[in-house]
């Protein structure tokens, strides 16, 4: 199989396959990594996966870890044909990890790093108390998605501490003109000088009251999230790519009739579309197949319009897998024909009912892109780390048409407060109005702006 895959042009890391019992698959599935730190939320995910397995609601056949070498976990109970498909599938995942540009900055030694992190966190638990560390982890995890995955692009983040306002400032200001003074105070307020998307890093660097172990946890978890982020951003592509290839590799093998039937059953389960969500395996596969087709045998129109020569299908999909992420993948390759053929739509709650509200292909495409932008999480930025001149934290939600869940928002602010140590505020838009939510350590409040 490996030979076959290589002959197709797949270029993957050396592979390590582990045959494991179901329990381990669910551990890895719920932690994201077998070596990751302990937290009750992982236990909750583990319980859910395990229950779904026990009740036969869903099965995870495979899991692969982006590392060099790549670790893939195969379920002990799988049949031979299942394991063959899984191996074909994960070879393509490994190829994707190795070659997609968004993964170029990820650490390939994360298994070890996470094991060290877990050990360190456990040490902190012993030193500072289990409850103390757990509460802190709860808080960090509540904003873990708010990192800046492109932090390495562009200029370095400022490290400057907050210029403190002191009671002697008026002495220093003696002899300066009024405009100088106001410039000075404006400088003080401009912190950070540019809105900062990396909440975790900003807090780790600047929160006044944190202890060293707490800052350490913030940095560790941020590093782990940076590692996971490309996987979030390329889910559709990555699954589509793996499905595209396991189909071809399996077709290239000699399967008995029974095996072929079992395989196609399994495959159709995998790509089963859902009325209420998008199946990344199905959508990703359809787009890759479509690209392949359109570049391999371009229509007369495509040849005329773009001067596209036939036979470039393979080259094109390898190029796409290297340069795109889900957002650009849908933007560039989800065509009108595909939206129609796949019967994609947008739905929304109207009254008490969930109704289809959009079928126009461009609207649907844009809606889908919207829903996965920034990993499907709201885009937040630290706007001011010294808000009101009293060291409050002001976060701005860069509103792009999607409203926040207010109940969750009000439960999350206290977590941020715990990290920052001073009142926190968040600006967003609710029903067309600009609103500021605040938490001062005791209660939530909101204010129209």
């Amino acid at each position, binding site marked *: 199989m490996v030979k076959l895959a290589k002959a197709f042009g797949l270029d993957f890391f050396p592979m390590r396959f582990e045959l494991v019992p179901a329990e381990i698959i669910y551990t890895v599935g719920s932690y994201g990594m077998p070596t990751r730190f302990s937290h009750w939320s992982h236990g909750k995910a583990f319980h859910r996966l395990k229950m779904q397995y026990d009740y036969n609601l869903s099965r995870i056949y495979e899991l692969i870890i982006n590392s060099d070498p790549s670790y893939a976990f195969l379920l002990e109970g799988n049949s031979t044909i299942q394991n063959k498909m899984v191996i074909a599938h994960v070879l393509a995942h490994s190829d994707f990890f190795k070659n997609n540009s968004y993964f170029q900055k990820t650490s390939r030694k994360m298994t070890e790093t996470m094991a060290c992190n877990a050990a360190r966190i456990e040490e902190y638990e012993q030193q500072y108390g289990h409850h103390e560390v757990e509460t802190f982890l709860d808080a960090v995890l509540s904003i873990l998605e708010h990192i800046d995955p492109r932090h390495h692009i562009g200029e370095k983040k400022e490290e400057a501490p907050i210029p403190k306002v002191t009671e002697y400032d008026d002495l220093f200001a003696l002899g300066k003109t009024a405009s100088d003074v106001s410039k000075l105070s404006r400088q003080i307020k401009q912190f950070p000088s540019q809105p900062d998307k990396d909440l975790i890093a900003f807090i780790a660097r600047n929160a006044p009251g944190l202890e060293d172990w707490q800052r350490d946890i913030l940095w560790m978890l941020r590093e782990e999230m940076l590692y996971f982020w490309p996987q979030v951003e390329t889910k559709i592509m990555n699954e589509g790519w793996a499905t595209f290839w396991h189909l071809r590799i399996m077709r290239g093998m000699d399967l008995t009739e029974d095996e072929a039937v079992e395989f196609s059953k399994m495959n159709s389960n995998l790509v089963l579309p*859902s009325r*209420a969500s998008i199946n990344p395996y199905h959508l990703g596969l359809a787009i890759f197949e479509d690209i392949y087709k359109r570049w391999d045998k371009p229509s007369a129109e495509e040849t005329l319009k773009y001067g596209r020569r036939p036979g470039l299908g393979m080259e094109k999909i390898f190029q796409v897998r290297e340069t795109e992420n889900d957002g650009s993948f849908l933007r560039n390759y989800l065509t009108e024909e595909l939206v129609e053929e796949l019967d994609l739509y947008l739905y929304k709650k109207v009254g008490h009912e969930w109704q289809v509200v959009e079928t126009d292909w461009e609207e649907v495409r844009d809606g889908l892109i919207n829903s996965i932008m920034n990993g499907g999480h709201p885009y937040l930025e630290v706007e001011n780390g010294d808000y009101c001149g009293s060291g409050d934290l002001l976060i701005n939600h860069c509103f792009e048409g999607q409203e926040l869940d207010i109940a969750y928002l009000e439960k999350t602010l206290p977590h941020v407060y715990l990290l920052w140590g001073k009142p926190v505020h968040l600006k967003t838009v609710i029903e067309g109005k600009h609103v500021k939510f605040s938490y001062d350590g005791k209660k939530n409040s909101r204010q129209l702006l």
Partner: protein
Amino acid sequence: MTDNLISRDDWSLHRKGRIDQKRHREKVKDAIKNNLSDLITDEGIIITKGKKVLKVPIRSLEEYHFRYSHEKNKHGGQGNGNSKKGDVLGSDPSGGPSGRGKGAGDQPGVDYYEVEMSVEELSELLFEELELPNMQEKQSKEVETEAYRFTDVRKRGLSGNLDKKRTILENLKRNAMKGEPKIGGITPEDLRYKTWTVHRQYKSNAVVLAMMDTSGSMGNFEKYIARSFFFWMVRFLRTKYESVEIIFIAHHTQAKVVTEEEFFTKGESGGTKCSSAYSLALDLIDKKYPPEEYNLYPFHFSDGDNLPSDNELCYKLVAGLLERCNMFGYGEIVNPYYRSSTLLNTFKSVSADNFKAVTIKDKNEVFSALKAFFSRKDRD
């Protein structure tokens, strides 16, 4: 292919997921404690009396983060051919939008799972805070019981009562004095035994009179509330107090003493005269349970829909009960659609300290009623 390996390790000691799952469960239990008011009126508990283990559906703990509102935004989906605008995918069973606890419906991320919990466990959580108020030691019928408590450590004793920890400490001490910091070579002089002393405990007898309106105006909701309250009251009294007698009185225009079984299952109809129950209670007290000998606790649950001409008599009888009893508790179940009652109005002018009235509008207020009647604070 040295590059590509298949291996199979021994994972049998891998317990990470289970350990964290346990921690999640612990946290859920804490959450249950905070949601007792919703749980104790769960139909399953009151109806299946004999059942030991309950399956309580619990929302698993939320992991709060900043997220988009599911309700207000659009989502992608995929049909099987020709979906049109206006096609309905499903509807929200909970109806209108409400603050917490929106229906599961199509909402993602609402995980319910079942926690197995015995009624005992639930009771323990619940009864932690409850106590019969104003309990007094009554003269004549004191019951004396003996209780044993380990209070002392001695060098001699029964070998079953060997205090291993202290023995080891003694051994360590002795070795240390010889300059050898270790455990070992335990000799008879290291041995330490626990001994006990006998304590005398006095218990006072208490009688609880549970009175319930079973007239026609008591609908299913009202009966359900009253029964939930009494269910937990009975359980609580039997768990915490050894010698408490409970008398069940059902009434409409007439009152009679019924069995526990009848009290919790039988419905009646007809008009309402609450005075009938009160006078029966008074009668019983005067004949069988003199206040010098018993702690007396009458409780009455009604929808308050009493015959107006009867109210004055009720007032008088309740005043009589208050003179004799440690506490009189009146619970009125208020149907939100009805006018306010006449009976509670009648009681508004009662000023005795041992009179307590609560109103219940919702299932989850049964818990606060229990707390109001059996609060510990009152003792101080």
